[in-house]
């Protein structure tokens, strides 16, 4: 499911495969999540992530400056993914049980 309301997570996920500049981030996120982040939204999230030390510039200042994950950013992404995995596991289990119950009810 595309999480349009979580640009920082989308950016961290994109940078997990290597450094990217703004346009490359936008293209990559659209490719794997089906979400096209606007330039303002994307750079707002980049600024917050850099402020929190989760990403950092991977090259000198310029119009196409790339960013990369920091160790703290990778750790934050892992924590978020683990949390989401737990929700996915629990949600799937509950749906499966509900499916059985639903199937039983219909029968």
């Amino acid at each position: 499911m595309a999480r349009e309301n979580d640009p920082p997570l989308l950016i961290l996920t994109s940078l997990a495969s290597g450094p990217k500049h703004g346009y490359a981030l936008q293209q990559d996120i659209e490719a794997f999540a089906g979400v096209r982040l606007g330039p303002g939204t994307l750079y707002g999230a980049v600024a917050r992530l850099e402020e929190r030390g989760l990403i950092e510039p991977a090259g000198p200042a310029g119009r196409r400056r790339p960013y990369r994950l920091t160790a703290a950013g990778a750790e934050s992404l892992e924590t978020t993914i683990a949390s989401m995995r737990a929700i996915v596991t629990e949600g799937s289990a509950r749906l499966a049980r509900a499916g059985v119950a639903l199937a039983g009810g219909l029968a």
Partner: protein
Amino acid sequence: MLLVRLYPATWRARYGAELEALILEASAGGRVPWRTRADVVRAAARERVHAALGGSAPDRVRASASVVLWAWAAFVVAGVGVQKYSEHWQSATPAGSRELPAAAFDALVVTAGIGSVLVLAGIAATVPSLAALLRAGGWPRIRRPVTAALVLAATLVPATIGLVLWAHRLTEAQRNGHDALYTGIGAAWGLLVLATLVGWTRAATATAAHLDLPPAVLRLEARLAAALAVAMAVMTAATAVWWASLAAAGTVSSLAPQLVVAGVLMLLATVVAAGAAGRGLRAA
């Protein structure tokens, strides 16, 4: 690009060029879609709110150091006023009443020297980041304020030499208000000094907004700004002691207008610098 100008100056200095490049690339060089425009306007509004609530820690340190530098510039102007007024205080003060004002005046001069060293140290600490900015093609972003400051300095140097050479040909009476032309040109030179001071302070703070300063340098800048605020407080106190002791000796009036204006300016600059330095230390 007008859209990018909606952002706060500090944010624009850091991300403006990248955001503009992304907007142009995402629009394939054509007309920027309304959806993109709306997204940027919304994001710029959020950044303005964020900046109003304090911005990032590096931005807060940078902003507080810039405020302290501006306060120092105002303090220097006030100090020049005190210096001008104090030119002949020793010869006008009875020998028995000179000890306390002399100690206060010495403290003022020494602390002024320390303050100048602190400012120079703060500038020196940013040189590697400035070099990195210039290597990365950042000169156009700081060209305007730096060029203006250089032009003012280049005008001030020959003007000062000319004024000094002229002054040597005049009598003491002519130098002290009895030559209208010299007085008028002296006042114009004073304005040029003021403009040069403002120009360099503006160049320094505008350049600092474009620099990527490492955390260690930001911490150093915050501490130097705090030390400068302390130096300003010491100088204000020393000036007050010097002034009060001379007033008690009957050498100067306790309500001398030039000293009142200079004293108030010193006090205001110190209060502003102390507040900003405190914010910078908390953010560093």
